[in-house]
């Protein structure tokens, strides 16, 4: 079994309707050096547990949402519309 994501616009939908947008990370300031930027782009917490992340609802409202999911169980808490 996959899992479902609760889209704030469309309700509970199958995960295959969405495109994964990766971990929600803190973006470096405009004057950050290249090393900081590379760290931001390529490196991940990759937590085994609670995870704040982006999804795009391709087969639904076509908007980006930010959700918190437990990557150990794939249980999703409420989504937030951005």
């Amino acid at each position, binding site marked *: *079994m*996959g899992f479902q994501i609760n889209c704030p616009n469309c309700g509970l939908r199958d*995960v*295959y309707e969405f*495109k*994964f947008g*990766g*971990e929600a990370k803190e973006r470096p300031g405009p004057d950050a050096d*290249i*090393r900081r930027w*590379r*760290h931001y782009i*390529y*490196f*991940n*917490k*990759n*937590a*085994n547990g609670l*995870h704040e*992340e982006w999804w795009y609802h391709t087969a639904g409202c076509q908007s980006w949402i930010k959700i918190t999911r437990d*990557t*150990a*169980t*794939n249980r999703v808490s409420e989504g937030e519309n951005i």
Partner: protein
Amino acid sequence: MALKKPLWKFCEPNRSYDAVVIGGGLHGMAAAYYLARDFGMTNVAVLDRRRMGYGGSSRNTEVIRANQRAPEILPLYVQSIRLWNELSAEVEWNFMVWMKGLIGLAHNAAGVNSMRMRHATQTNLGIENHILSPEELKKLIPALDTSRSAAIPIAGGYYHPPGGTVHHDAAVWGLMKGLHRHGVHLCPGVDVRSISIKNGRVNGVEAKVGGNKITISAPLIHMALGGWSSEVAAMAGITLPVVTLPLQAMVTECVKPFLNHVVVSELYFCYCQQSIKGDLIMGAHLDPWQSYRSYNTYEFAAEQAYFMLQLFPDLAHLKLMRSWSGLCDMTVDGAPIMGALPIEGLFIDAGWGYFGFKASPACGKNMAELIATGRTPEKITFLGMERFYEGRMVPEVYIARS
């Protein structure tokens, strides 16, 4: 007749070792094996939270090959095939190495061009590979639908004779046997919870064994944790350029032998091989989101069955027996992370995603050399983690999920 002497034994870890390997998969066990074999380091323990081979090492679909893309990594694969072949005699254990040859299919001109490019690289490095026309492919694989009206037309392909399969369980057991023979400790059920660091040097780990907390001291620590790499690296304060994604595979009922090679469709990310038992092992589907949970989906089975039936229409009505999944540690450039870390005495071999089974013995051998001598062997010089900060990516491509 029962064997008088066990082939291997498990034990609880001692309180101190010359080196500790965290992760009892094939990469970790191979590193420990070559530490003992090549450098005489036998006061070593391999620790695993679950059991030896619990992770990708006994979930993979057993494909070996030496024809991925990046010239930086190809020599490692070539070395690995040689080592797989040597291990059976060396450990006196049948690893069931079967160099049946690997055939790749291209479905359009772009696919054929990409194969030609890789063919040139491989030829340069002395790796055997042949570009084939649809007619030649049909001769090698009579069951393949090469007709022009096929829903997935076949534009060409390659034949890579050194490719094939190694039995993954035989590999896990074989390395356990080899390690036991050298006196290396195999310690399942040891859940590493923290890595202790003093003055920029590692000096041991803390782990849970049953309900008890233990500490093990060691000046050298190697992390070979597959999908769990980020979790354990974080114990040393290290963030990795890795995400953990779930990969699914499946197997059909047994039929008479009809497929002599591993067959891979590079565009549709699916492949198939017939085991010696007669079942067809098929993979693989990588869900493109992070997950530490193993699960199987209908979407995977349906998609896989669809592609397989386009390639091999005769497989219609064949039953699926099982499907399973495992975790893949993926980097952005598709190449692994191997080398020493900024903390002295700490090493890593990770980022092997869905393609690290074939490379296990060579990874172990090179990591053992690095750990024992402190010098980075030439075959892994391009693979250090610093490349992500320096913008020196290794252009591996995710060609087929095998």
